[in-house]
């Protein structure tokens, strides 16, 4: 089910601009890894290289290796579309398909992968919505448009949509930054449940959130504006927030810069 991610020597470019430089790290299966760091340090860019979404941006280009267990995502014979079916993603702003009902939103990814019987589809939709802690709130209005839900519900709908296809890895790009505190709490609880089944990587600006939800934390930084972002260190979350091995990390988490 969940797979290990092994990144080595990864750099990403926008045209000729190097956005992140020579990053290597390992993400353990069935764990939550948080990426923290100041704006522009490349943590979102790095996240998007893990499911080959970076190259969708005009001029986007990647060097290096990302191994998902034994498979290099950037191997020459690998189809980026297939990668995105194994590595799911949740975005900063909730983005359910506005023209689809709640049901169709959850089923969207499944319908891309093949045809299902109505009964099977019903089962998976229910399971996914339950997995996203949304079932009880929407079970009576599955045929209403997803855009009618609140922001927090929409984000959980997006999570349900992402987990419905049973990905190996779930990437989350600041999933709570557009939500109020109560919705944020609901998503954080959900992340705790989801890590039983998935490998989760989450980018966040909120350090308390990183401390609450993650097992391991990676700190990214850049030397100056215009310079590429670098991975400063990655360690057990507890250690990063109590006794980091690099001075810059301590400065950042204690609020001395950034």
């Amino acid at each position: 089910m969940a797979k290990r991610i092994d990144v080595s020597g990864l750099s990403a470019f926008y045209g000729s601009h190097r956005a992140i430089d020579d990053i290597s790290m390992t993400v353990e299966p069935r764990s939550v890894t948080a990426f923290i760091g100041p704006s522009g340090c490349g943590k979102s860019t790095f996240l998007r290289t893990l499911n080959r979404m970076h190259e969708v941006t005009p001029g986007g280009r990647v060097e290096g290796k990302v191994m998902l267990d034994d498979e290099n995502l950037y191997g020459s014979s690998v189809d980026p579309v297939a990668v995105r079916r194994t590595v799911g993603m949740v975005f900063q702003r909730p983005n359910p398909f506005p023209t689809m009902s709640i049901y169709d939103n959850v089923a969207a990814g499944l319908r891309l992968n093949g045809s299902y019987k109505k009964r099977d589809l019903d089962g998976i939709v229910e399971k996914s919505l339950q997995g996203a802690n949304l079932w009880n709130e929407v079970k009576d209005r599955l045929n209403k448009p997803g855009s009618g839900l609140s922001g927090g519900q929409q984000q959980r709908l997006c999570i349900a949509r992402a987990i419905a296809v049973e990905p190996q890895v779930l990437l989350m790009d600041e999933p709570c930054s557009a939500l109020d505190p109560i919705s944020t709490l609901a998503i954080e609880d959900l992340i705790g449940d989801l890590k039983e089944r998935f490998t989760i990587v989450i980018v966040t600006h909120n350090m308390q959130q990183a401390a609450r939800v993650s097992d391991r934390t990676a700190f990214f930084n850049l030397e100056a504006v215009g310079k590429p972002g670098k991975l400063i260190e990655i360690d057990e979350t507890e250690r990063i927030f109590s006794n980091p091995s690099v001075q810059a990390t301590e400065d950042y988490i204690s609020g001395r810069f950034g």
Partner: protein
Amino acid sequence: MNTTPTVPAPPAEPAGPPPSAKGTATRPGDKIFLGLSRGSGILLLTLMAAIAAFLTYRAYIAISENEANFLTSFEWNPQGEPVEFGIAILVYGTIVSSIIAMVIAVPIAVGIALFVSHYAPRRLAAPLAYVIDLLAAVPSIVYGLWGALVLVPYLGGMNKWLDQYLGWTYIFDKTGTGPARNLFTVGILLAVMILPVITNVTREVFLQSPKMHEEAALALGATRWEVIRMSVLPFGRSGIISASMLGLGRALGETMAVATVLSPSFLFSGHLLDPGGGTFAQNIAAKFNEADEFGRDALIASGLVLFVMTLLVNGAARLIIARRKEYSGANA
């Protein structure tokens, strides 16, 4: 250059009262602007009412003298004895040629718009969009000449082919041997003419489709075509409909090009490849100069029907768009 009759803008809804400024000081700028905008709104309504009144009055004069049924008669003889004229052949010709034009133009236009907005590399997309804009700037009489001098002779062979292989469908059965001055050719010509309008409007809409929904589809493992089907087309649906209606409006009212290509007749034929037929605008253009006062009233009566038809088309488009509002991308 454009002989298209103005597509009547749907009557503006009476503007709700602006936030009342009672009790607070009004600035002169606000007053002037309020006057200007209210004046423009009233002017538009007055114009519409004046046109409708003029058409209705002259049409009433003509129809009250008519011995035949105005809506169902295939005759057009307002200056004869007895006075007999009807619009059945014009309704048929206008609708059939417009339908042919839409069936051909809409899929091609949507295809071009998708190619320009989502497939073509940027270096190619901009010049292509420019060329399409140029197509819209060609005067309709030029299209008419091209239709008469190029399209008609070339379509002769195609007509024969259609007759031979699709003749069993009845509509493609050609009963004579005349040149291709028929409704089918008119439909193809109209399709070329309305293509740029539909393409440009749909392309604009597709370009506005929200990036975040395209990314949502991509992240689920959608291919490029699936991204378009899941996020671009649903978002652009109402845009496609309104673009098509704009094109339909032009096709319904096109005059010079149709008049140049068609060999008009008031003999009904259900075979699209038979020469003859006519459309509202073409009939008015062809008959107006030789008509006397009463003949012109009769033509104006047919113009009124075209006016109402265009209003209905616009109304229908609005209904379709409004019904889909809950699901449209606008409330995302």
